[in-house]
Structures are given as C-alpha cells and as structure tokens.
C-alpha cells in the first residue's frame, strides 16, 4: 500500500520479452489496496501473464466495475486503455467494446459482489454470448469496498468478522458458468501464482469467454477463523484437480508429460495448453462429468482448482455467431457503411 509514484528507472539486467519490454512495462500505478489483499497478488500474476505472452500493452482493453477488485486495472498495464465503469456493469460494457473492435484483447476484473449480485445478469449473458474476453472474479466472499457485508459467494455458515454466520446458500460462479455453457472455466487462488499465471495466459488466448474465479482473501474483513475465503482455509482446502501448463507456440516440450494423464489443447494462435489431470477420472472437456466431479469434491469440503473445463473450438464466439466481418467494425470505412444518395432514392420508391 503506497501512494508514491513508482520510479521510472529500471534495472538494466531485467529480463525482456520478445517485444523488448520488461515486466515493469506491464505494471500500472501503485496499488492503494490494503497490504496483503489477495487482489494485489492477482495483479502481479496478470502482469506476469501479459509479459510472458509478449502482448503489446496498447492492444489490451482492461475493464472493471466497482469495488476494491475493480480498482486493480489501474495497477497493471499503464499502456492499455482502462475503463473503471459502474457497479456490476463491466460485462455489458466489455461486450459492447468487443463488438466494436475484435482485434483487442479484453480483460475484465470484477469482484464477487460486482459479478454475483448486481452484475449477475450481465455476467451470465456475456457467458451465453461467448464474448471473447478474460473475465476474472476476485472472490473474497465479502463486499470489501463497502466494508465487509456478506456477498453472494459467501458459504452458508461462514462467519463475518463480527462472528455472525451467513444464513444463505452461495452462488458458485464456477458451477454457474458451467451450467450456462461457458467455454472456459477455471478456479484458482491468489496465493498460488504458479497455478494462476498459466491459467491467465490460457484464458487470454481462449477463443471465447474465459471465466476465472480466483479466491482472493480480504485481509481486512474476511481473513479470520470461520471464514471460508481466508488464506488459511483456502491453503488447507485447495485441491488442484488439473495442473495447467501453458506452452508458447514455438517452445513446446512434450517429454515432461506422460501419456494418458495429459490433455493437450491448441489455441487459435498455435500455442498449447497442457492439462495434467490430478484425478485420474477427470475429463476437463466433458461438461457434465466436470460438474459432477466438482459437486462431489465441494461436498467433501474441498476447493477444486485448475482449468476445470475447456471447449477449445471457439465455434460459438460472439462475432462468429453474428457473422461479423473480420475487420474490426471501428476500422470499416464510412463509405462501406453508408448506402449513399442513389440507394436512398431507389429505396424511397417503396414508400410511394
């Protein structure tokens, strides 16, 4: 937590990516969140993912709603356009943005309050439309910014800071997304960067809507005993169901992965995602079985994590479904949009 500006100088020995940029070039302004907030770790993972993907920052649009989590787009990718919109409305705004310009990469950051209450409808419909974007729910089970009320993801019986138990059943974004037909569903933990970074990278390259529910403890209002979204609880209960490794197109190493337990998925740009199944009977491309498996594990009190479901075809992506031109609509010249004088004259014959 610091309000000072970051120094612009960087160490000459910092590693550069293919664009000649260092990881510092993917950072944003200093975070103003509480020290230890899970959201800051996610920010760091996002920075790393974009750096490793060699993404030109200005080709990214980062959007959010309102909440502590929704503040984070300011803390990564200063070189990208950002939109900190209104509470719960990020998905709708991102959908419109994606409609206008399909060549940018879209990353939406939201909270469990933002996404699962006020924005539930918008998020669900962005899933249905299969808008090509990475949608991150920074899930802490509480409303951080408005000081600790239970959110819709708070588990039944989990305790507030004052010890009050939550009486309502939670909305699980992962189960919701799966049942809505999401084509990429993952869960991770802000404290597990090794798992999170490859999932973020895979999500960014996914040809459609990629949902990542990231348990992100709120140190100020929800990191105590009795909370099911605390660091301690998550560390204890997290079970990686699928280990995700992301391999760029040019550098595939298959030797590490024994046959039989690995699913290989090739993204539209040729990169590969390896899904190493920790549970032998888990098939991350079978929606029904994925749901059944998740239910079982969750009933047993576990927090299954990893890239839980993936449909790599991209067939239902919004623009594909709408048959939009491949040129981004913002780049279509006006002359190709306006039918002109003669067409109007001809058309008006029908209104005589």
């Amino acid at each position: 937590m610091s309000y000072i500006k970051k120094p612009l100088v960087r160490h000459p020995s910092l590693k550069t990516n293919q664009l000649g940029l260092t990881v510092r070039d993917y950072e944003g302004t200093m975070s103003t969140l509480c020290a230890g907030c899970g959201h800051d770790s996610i920010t760091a993972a996002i920075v790393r993912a974009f750096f490793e993907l060699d993404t030109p920052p200005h080709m990214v649009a980062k959007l959010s709603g309102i909440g502590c989590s929704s503040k984070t787009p300011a803390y990564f990718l200063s070189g990208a356009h950002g939109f900190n919109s209104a509470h719960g409305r990020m998905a709708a705004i991102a959908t419109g943005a994606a409609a206008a310009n399909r060549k940018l990469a879209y990353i939406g950051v939201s909270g469990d309050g933002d996404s699962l209450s006020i924005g539930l409808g918008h998020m669900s419909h962005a899933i249905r439309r299969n808008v090509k974007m990475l949608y991150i729910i920074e899930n802490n089970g509480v409303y951080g910014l408005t000081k600790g009320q239970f959110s819709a993801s708070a588990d039944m019986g989990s305790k507030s800071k004052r010890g009050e138990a939550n009486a309502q059943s939670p909305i699980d974004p992962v189960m919701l997304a799966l049942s809505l037909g999401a084509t990429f569903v993952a869960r991770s933990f802000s404290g597990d960067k090794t798992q999170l970074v490859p999932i973020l990278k895979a999500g960014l390259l996914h040809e459609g809507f990629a949902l990542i529910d990231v348990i992100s403890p709120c140190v100020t209002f929800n990191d105590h005993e009795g909370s099911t979204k605390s660091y301690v609880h998550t560390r204890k209960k997290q079970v990686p169901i699928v280990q995700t490794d992301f391999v760029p197109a040019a550098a595939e190493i298959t030797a590490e992965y024994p046959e039989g337990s690995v699913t290989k998925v090739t993204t539209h740009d040729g990169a590969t995602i390896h899904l190493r199944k920790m549970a032998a009977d888990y098939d991350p491309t079978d929606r029904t079985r994925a749901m059944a498996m998740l239910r079982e594990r969750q009933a047993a009190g576990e927090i299954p994590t990893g890239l839980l479901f993936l449909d790599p075809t991209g067939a239902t992506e919004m623009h594909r479904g709408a048959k939009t031109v491949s040129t981004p609509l913002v780049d279509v010249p006006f002359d190709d949009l306006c039918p002109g004088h003669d067409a109007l004259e001809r058309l008006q014959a029908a209104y005589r």
Partner: protein
Amino acid sequence: MQHEAVASSQEHIQPSGEEVRDRTNDFAFKLANVNGTGSASANGLIMQAIFRMGIPVSGKNLFPSNIQGLPTWYEVRVNAKGHTARTSVYDLIVAMNAETYARDIREVRPGGYVLYDATWPLSPALARDDVTFLGVPYAQLCNENFTEVRERTLMKNIAYVGTLVALFDIDMDIVTGMLKEKFSRKPALMESNAKAIKLGYDYAREHFECPLPMKLEKMDATKGSILIDGNTATALGCVYAGATVAAWYPITPSTSVLDGFKAFCETYRTDKATGERRYCILQAEDELAAMGMVIGAAWNGARAFTSTSGPGISLMSELIGLAYYAEVPAVIVDVQRVGPSTGMPTRTQQGDILMCAYASHGDTKHVVLFPANPNECFSLAVKAFDLAEKLQTPVFLLSDLDIGMNDWVVPRLEWDDSYKPDRGRVLSKEELLALPTPKYYRYSPEDEHGVAARTLPGVHEKGSFFTRGSGHNKLGGYTEIPDEYQEVMDRLARKHRAARHLVPPAIIEKRPEATFGVVTVGGCDPAVREALETLEERGVHGDFLRVRAFPFGDEVEAFLAEHEIVYVVEQNRDAQLRSLLILETSVPKEKLRSITAYGGFPLQAHQVIEGIALP
C-alpha cells in the same frame, strides 16, 4: 332504414349544418376492426391509394396493448390543405367489430355514414336517424366466393376496401396497381385480393349512390413526398450515419427502430458473397446492459446507439450518467409512450422530456433532439451521432409513438454524398506522437466548446488513459479535491451551453398581426399549425415556434422575450416543456400558459384552439 335516434356521446362534434358543404378531399373516417384479422393491410391499402392520388392524408393506428382479439381502430384524415393532425370528427365509420358497434356508431357525426357487415341484422338499439347506414353482407359474400376459412375472414377486410373505392371515388387503377406491386410474386394472393375488392365495389355500385358527398379528387400535393413511419426513418438515419453497433431490449413502441435497422443492414451492409456483416446488433438482457454495450462500443470508437421507450430510459439512467461524466458519446432513441410506470404501452405521450434532459443522479444535463415527423427522424438521427461525437456526450433523439409508428406524408428524405461524419476530436497515432507534451491527458486541453480530444484503444500506447465514472480531474486522474472536481463539472456545464449553437434551431413562423406566441414540440406540430390557421380565419393571430433541441438556442430565448403571452403546447400532464423553458431560459414563468393533452391519443387542433380561447 328507420331507426330510433341515439344520443351522441361524441364531445367534439362540430356545429351542425356543415354537411351541406363540399367535402371533396376534406373528411375523416374511422375503421373499427378486430386485432389480428389482417385489417392493417386493408387499411394501409386505402391510405396509400389516397396518398398516390396526390392528396394529403394521415393514418393513425389506435391499437390496444395486446396481440390478438381486442378491438383496434384506424383513423384516416384527408385534407387538401395539408392539415393531417388527428381529428375525431368522423364522416364515416367502417364498423367491422360487432363488439364495439355501440361506441363506433355513436361517434359518427350527424349526417355521416356507417358502413357495416349486413350479413347479420343490426340491433335496433344501435339505431340513429341522423346518420345513413350502409350495409354490405361481407361475410356472406366472402363465404360464397372463397373456400378456405382463413381467406373468408381476411377477405372481408379487403372487400370493404372495394366498397370505399366506390364510395369515395378512389382511383381503381391505383388500387389495382398497388396490388400488382404488392403481390408480384404471389399471383394467387393477388387474384383473391382483386376478387374481394371487386365484390365490395360492385355491391356498393349496385346498392348505394356512389360516390358519397365526401369523395376524392386527384391532386398534386404529395409529389416529392413519401409515406413512411418515424421508426423506419430513424433506422435509416442510423444506417446513413454509419452506426455499426446497436444494443437494445425490446419495448413498444421502439422495437421497429431496431427491426428497421436490422433489415436495412441486411440489405446494405451484408457481403453478398461471404455473408459477412458490417454491423453488430446486440439484443441485450435488459436496458442496463443495452446502455452499457453502447458505451463500451462508443468508447472503442464505433458509432453506437440504443432505442427504447420511457421505462428503458429509467433503467438506463445510471449509465447515461456515466457516459455524461466520462464523456463517452452515445445515441439514445426514446420513442415515448404513456407513463408513468408501464403506463399505456400502445398510446402516445411526451412524458419523457424532463427525464431525458436531466437523466441520472448528480448534476447532469443532456442534449435532446425533438423530431416532429419521420423526415426529421431521419435527419436528426444523423445529427445526433455528429453531436454525440463532437461533444463526447449522450444525445437523445426523443420521438414518440405517434411519430414512430404511424405513417406520415413527408417530403422525400435527402442525402448529400459529400456528408462526412463529424467524429469530433479523436487523436490519430500521428497526432498523439506529435503532441507537445510527453504524455496525453484525457480532459485537457479543451476547445472552444469545452471538449477535449479523446483517443481510442489500440491506436498507440501514448494515447492510453483511464476512463472512470468516479471523481476525476482535468487530466483524467482520480480526485476528491473540491477545486479539481468542480473544474471538470464547470467545463461540462460550459460544454452543454456551447451545444446550443450546434443543435438544430427552432422552427419559427411569424404573422404580422400576432398578439401571442405558441411554443410547441415534436408531434404536436401539425395540430398546432392547424389551430393557428383556423384561428387566423377567425381573426386571431399567433406566432409559432417549435423547439427542435435542448439546450434551447438563442432564438428560443428571443421568441419568448418578444411575446407578452406564450402558450406552451405539449402532451403530458405536468407541462414538462414549460418547466424546462422556465428552468433554462430567463422567461418569467407568468408569461407561459400551458396547454396540455395527455390522454394517450395524438393531439387535435380543437384542443389547442380551446386552450387559447379560454381566458
């Protein structure tokens, strides 16, 4: 036929004695039907035939808020002088809905006519001896001449078109020509329609004295005009303006804006070979999302719009405030219906004026354009996109059900191919790199209109900025410092004031002997003009002004200053336009006298005349 007289409940019947005057090209009739029986096409046929005879005509659909089975009415007024506002003085009624006979028959003026289906006898209780009953056994004729059940029902309506052709002396060649155009690819339908028309026509010629005193004579008054509804024209305007993203949620009476947009885009913006579309239509999950999508698309540089009605504006208000404060262009088409709440979805009103002018919480003020007819729907739609981008702000196109869903005779739409969209201040990559400052700042420096240059995502890293609906300073950074916040808010107010020189000016018509002024808006136009002309014939003279935009231009201020008394005519209970004039000009409020009509039907001239004549 001898019937007992039934007292008329019609409130606005004109003084008797008028039936002796010549009613050629000057009368009104009403068609009473059952919703869902295909009467719309029959009524449209008559309306279009009159239009093609060169006679000014208007048709008003008075339909219920349901899909099938309920009563529906269609009113047609022909007037050689071009007065096409609604009138409820009916010279003839076509009574095709037995359930509404009692009311429909009462509404005909003394000396008028009732055309009805004489297959079944009329109840004696419905009788009036001051009107002439014309009975045609439509059901019987159709049963004898058509075999299929559906055809028998549908053709009853087409048959009364034939009767009206005979009674009004409509040019039969025009009607046949229209059928040929309409059914060029469906010869069987063409044949049954022509047959039905002949049935109705021949029966009339055999049994009645044709034509009636109110009849039609060809004129030359609709040359260069088209017959079109406002929503179709709005949709065309959006296509011509180059809008590529439309996001909406279905609502009466604005749905046909998007239907039209989609149809025109399919014709003009779809690659014939590949099927690829140069547009994206998003049917949103609700109006909140629709507005969000428009903002997202416009933020990314597309010309984007939504179309809705009052209930939708209520929901969109949150994000309209965001667009205002973050300075994102957006075009919002509001086709007004009757409020509050769900109100009367299929009736017309001008009840959203104040809501649109100030939509959302905090200090917000928007640019609102008020078309009065389909021609203006087209041109002002294009203007709305130019203004939204020039001023980087939401712009409302505030139409209503009467303009949007009824057919109007208007001058042909004009398009100048030299038109270039005004994209406002958008920095290109080159301009960004050439900036004198090392960094680009979103909200400064401003130009003479109070507008700062924006940049689009994906153009260059130097143009990146953070858009936020939270407090920000002139550089775009987050702030809670009073002076910095106020500086931006003051500039936004300046921008709104500057808009008054950019919006379309009011339409003003002055009379040398005028003793008062009348200010009106939107679809009230024809009724107010007719009222002023009628009053002039009686020696009462008034000046006319129709506002076409908010903020009000200097000409509005001047007009208000010039007149001792100004009547403000509008269609809502609370005199919203009058309130806006009081709030936003320096006119003393005592000067402004309000004339309102808000029952849900289009305004009539007599309502204006009565308002002015009253002390």
